[in-house]
């Protein structure tokens, strides 16, 4: 059976690419520290020697729209184009291209459906920065086949937080039952407190540093029970109106497992939002 070589949870910051590649007067003062932290974080995936990447993210109203909105969707395609005109325009993100791992997509869909998750699927999916950001930070060569999984963290009504955790638990179990000997890294990105298009946006820190402190603690210690006890669909509006992106961190806590301490934890307090990076090695260490 396949091995889960690493579980990685991260914020996805669309400005990283531009900040890390800019030079001279255009380079922001925080860029060097940010690049150093990302370079260290990247090593945690490199050390895992993964063959395949499962990438959990959320479409930002690119291909998925309100006339036909899935809650959870698995990509099943041989290839994926990536990044969109408005991401190029606003963030300077490059167009990207990935190979798909269709066998694993099919396996996740079949076993996920049989496990009680009515997963939507897509055979032609152009993916966005929720998936390309971790590829840029963690695997810039973009040379490993992928399975993208999208969650709705964006367009209410949303599933309850516990459902994201359960989905993560299911993904972990299903990947571990995939026949063969491939090493799979499961990577998911979300947000800590975040405000977009509201009065608290683009402040000197994230909109709710206290929430961020607690959230990092929950994730680092694998404290699913406490996170579920304090987080609800209603409460997530309070730390910032885009904080429902935290649900993808909760999904990744489900992948990592209850009570599982992260092997690698780092964060970076930036303007607008806090960055946070977590890696677990399920069998205690890389191959």
């Amino acid at each position, binding site marked *: 059976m396949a091995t889960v070589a690493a579980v990685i949870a991260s914020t996805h910051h669309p400005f990283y690419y531009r900040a890390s590649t800019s030079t001279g007067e255009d380079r922001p003062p925080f860029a060097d520290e940010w690049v150093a932290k990302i370079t260290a974080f990247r090593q945690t995936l490199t050390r895992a020697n993964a063959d395949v990447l499962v990438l959990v993210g959320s479409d930002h*109203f690119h291909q998925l729209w309100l*006339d036909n909105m899935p809650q959870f969707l698995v990509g099943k395609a041989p290839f994926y184009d990536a990044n969109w005109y408005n991401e190029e325009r*606003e963030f300077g993100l490059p167009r990207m291209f990935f190979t798909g791992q269709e066998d694993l997509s099919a396996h996740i869909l079949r076993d996920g459906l049989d496990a009680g998750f009515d997963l939507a699927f897509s055979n032609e999916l152009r993916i966005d920065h929720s998936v390309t950001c971790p590829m840029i930070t963690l695997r810039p060569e973009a040379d490993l086949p992928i399975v993208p999984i999208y969650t709705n963290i*964006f367009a209410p009504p949303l599933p309850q937080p516990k459902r994201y955790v359960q989905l993560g638990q299911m993904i972990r179990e299903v990947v571990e039952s995939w026949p063969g000997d491939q090493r799979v890294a499961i990577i998911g990105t979300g947000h800590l407190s975040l405000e*977009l*298009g509201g*009065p*608290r946006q*683009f402040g000197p820190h994230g909109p709710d540093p206290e929430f961020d402190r607690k959230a990092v603690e929950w994730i680092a210690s694998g404290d699913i029970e406490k996170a579920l006890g304090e987080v609800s669909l209603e409460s997530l*509006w309070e730390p910032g109106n885009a904080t429902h992106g935290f649900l993808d961190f909760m999904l990744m806590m489900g992948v990592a497992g209850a009570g599982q301490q992260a092997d690698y934890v780092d964060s970076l307090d930036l303007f607008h939002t806090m960055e946070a990076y977590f890696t677990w090695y399920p069998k205690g260490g890389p191959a």
Partner: protein
Amino acid sequence: MSKYLMNKFLYTVDRDPELVERYREDPRGTVEWWEAERANGILNVLSAEQSSWLKFDDAEREALATHDYPALFGLGAHPFLALTLFIAMFERDYPEPLGFQLEYAQRLSHYALPYPDIAT
């Protein structure tokens, strides 16, 4: 009230470079044209099968026609869609980095929690 249709306007304009410029230069004309010609088009469906019932109410049409993003926020337009499109149209007019984004926040500063409902 049609939060969905406001969002559909923001979404379909934001993804089209020509429409972004057209809306920046002629907001009222673009909104009137779009409501007449595009509001009832189901995305990914041929025009012969378009919808028949979608229209803005007056407050929504006026907010869009005047680039009034604080009013759009109050009407429950999706904040991400509005922010993304308005950055595309107006960030270029501000010399300082984040100048437009910070003014945007300031112009919404009279809103307190709970924010207007964005569910569609």
